């Protein structure tokens, strides 16, 4: 594995409301090396977004990092002041979000929204910023960047907006890109375009990516390494090939079995029974035990540890 660019150590994030504190990210550890694409998968509500927002320190008002470290290039980001953080954000770590419809400011032009970040981080003049912006717009596939620059977001389709977001994120040449479900809201043909574009950009730069998705197909296509999350914890992590050929955690297996395929014979789907427990209602022992077809009594009693069972392959299950 290459040298770690991002190192997340026992990160714990809580959501506070008046009465209680919910742990939504519960002791996450992982690293991302240079030019690595790490996919974070898991079903809705498992804490993927909270993890990424914790890294960026962009948690909603009710959220708070309760413990752990986020080391970026050796520096712990947790506890940095807003001011210090603001020069990391966008410059060293860029982020794109799931909803391209709402992530762009509707009343400002594309160009304006791009150049403000460029001038802020690269310290260039306005006209230089415009050149850079147009350059990136061209690179994300707009043949006429000067026209797009003057457009307002609402006049662009979802795919175009997501490409704009991408250009905006890339413009300051960040070392790490966090993409939180960047294609979930898009149609498959457009998703293919965007994924293709990201792959291409990865090829051209030595950027690393934290790719958050719940679509195993996208994972297979994009990632070099995969982290599977369940109920705020990592349950399995492995390189892509291992994960798809030799998944060990029952949850990972369940996910793979319940996903319908486009190829091969049509076999009955094997769903995972039950549903994801909401934060705050996590069972005491193994959080997956209640839905696990292989669960034994002891599973319910004891929290399993994340154990290394092969090179770079960790599983949180006592039965393995």
């Amino acid at each position, binding site marked *: 594995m290459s040298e770690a660019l991002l190192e997340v150590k026992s990160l714990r994030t809580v959501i506070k409301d008046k009465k209680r504190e919910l742990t939504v990210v519960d002791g996450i550890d992982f690293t991302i090396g240079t030019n690595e694409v790490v996919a974070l998968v898991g079903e809705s509500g498992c804490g993927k977004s909270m993890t990424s927002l914790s890294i960026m320190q962009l948690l909603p008002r009710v959220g708070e990092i309760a413990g752990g470290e986020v080391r970026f290039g050796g520096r712990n980001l947790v506890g940095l002041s807003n001011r210090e953080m603001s020069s990391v954000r966008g410059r060293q770590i860029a982020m794109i979000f799931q909803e391209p419809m709402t992530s762009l400011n509707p009343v400002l032009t594309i160009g304006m929204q791009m150049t403000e970040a460029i001038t802020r981080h690269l310290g260039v003049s306005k006209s230089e910023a415009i050149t850079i912006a147009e350059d990136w717009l061209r690179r994300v596939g707009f043949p006429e960047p000067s026209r797009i620059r003057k457009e307002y977001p609402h006049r662009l389709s979802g795919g175009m907006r997501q490409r704009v977001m991408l250009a905006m994120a890339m413009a300051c040449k960040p070392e790490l890109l966090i993409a939180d479900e960047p294609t979930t809201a898009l149609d498959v043909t457009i998703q293919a375009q965007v994924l293709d574009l990201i792959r291409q950009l990865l090829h051209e730069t030595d950027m690393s990516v934290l790719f958050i998705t719940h679509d195993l197909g996208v994972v297979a296509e994009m990632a070099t390494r995969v982290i599977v999350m369940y109920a705020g914890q990592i349950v399995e992590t492995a390189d892509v090939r291992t994960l798809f050929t030799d998944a060990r955690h029952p949850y990972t297996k369940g996910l793979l079995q319940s996903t319908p395929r486009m190829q091969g014979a049509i076999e009955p789907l*094997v*769903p995972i*029974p*039950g*549903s994801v427990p909401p934060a705050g*209602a996590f069972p005491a022992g193994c959080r997956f035990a*209640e839905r696990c077809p292989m669960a034994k009594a002891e599973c319910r009693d004891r929290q399993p540890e994340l154990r290394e069972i092969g090179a770079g392959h960790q599983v949180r299950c006592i039965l393995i």
Partner: protein
Amino acid sequence: MNEAVTTNKAQLPAAAAKPKRRAWERFKANRLAFVSLWIMAVLIVLALFAPVIALHDPAEQDLMSRLKPPSAAHWFGTDDLGRDLFSRVLYGARVSLSVAIFSVILNLLIGITVGSLAGYYGGKVDSFLMRIVDILLSFPTFFVLITVVTVLKPSLFNIIVVFVAFGWMSKARLLRGQILSVKNREFVDAARTIGMSDFRIIFVHILPNAIAPIIVSATLQMGSMILTESSLSFLGLGIQPPTASWGNLLQSAQSLTILSNAPWYPFIPGFMIFLTIMCFNFIGDGLRSAFDSK
């Protein structure tokens, strides 16, 4: 059924709170709103039982003891005709609160009917009704109140009529907007595919989901109704003496002699108005957070 469709039973919370209960919890969490609700409740009870509680007949004059300061016999003192202010404030509460509550309830009834029809049926019905709303809305409200109150004589009934006639439009508008958004929710389509009557769809499925902002705005409107009545009183067009309303009590205290010699007299109805409007506002605020579920 096989195990694939078995639900994890542990996950059905046995006694989860019902929506109404939860709304009430949220309302209670807003302390000011909760206290205001109590104050209003007390005021309403006092108003309802005014004849029992009041020590004096509110109309009984004692020209020998005019503008007397508060005392054991007259808790709030007496007015310029020697009438007991406490009794008058109590009876005034009946009038002022009735103006607020009844006119807002009627406003709601009309607003809901018109708003539902316009929002649900759309098209011609909508544009016709909204045209009417537009016309009525574009009247300068206070001017119209002045005109109409001078036309009809300013009795409790007529004031309510006027407040209703020119007060329901905002409710209708608001509700229409709400209904437009609720009616596109899929459960309404689901209801229609069952072949439910429009009436049932509107009243069982749409309205309960659309009404919250209207209730909130109605609460706030109660406050402004009290204010409007007192402003009308200031112009001599409010509830007419000798019937007491907070508005005309305040107005009748607006004389230099009283202001300087009996400052408690204007203060008391002024404070009642202030307190009530404040309570309605806080309650509205509380309702807003109570309805703001999810």
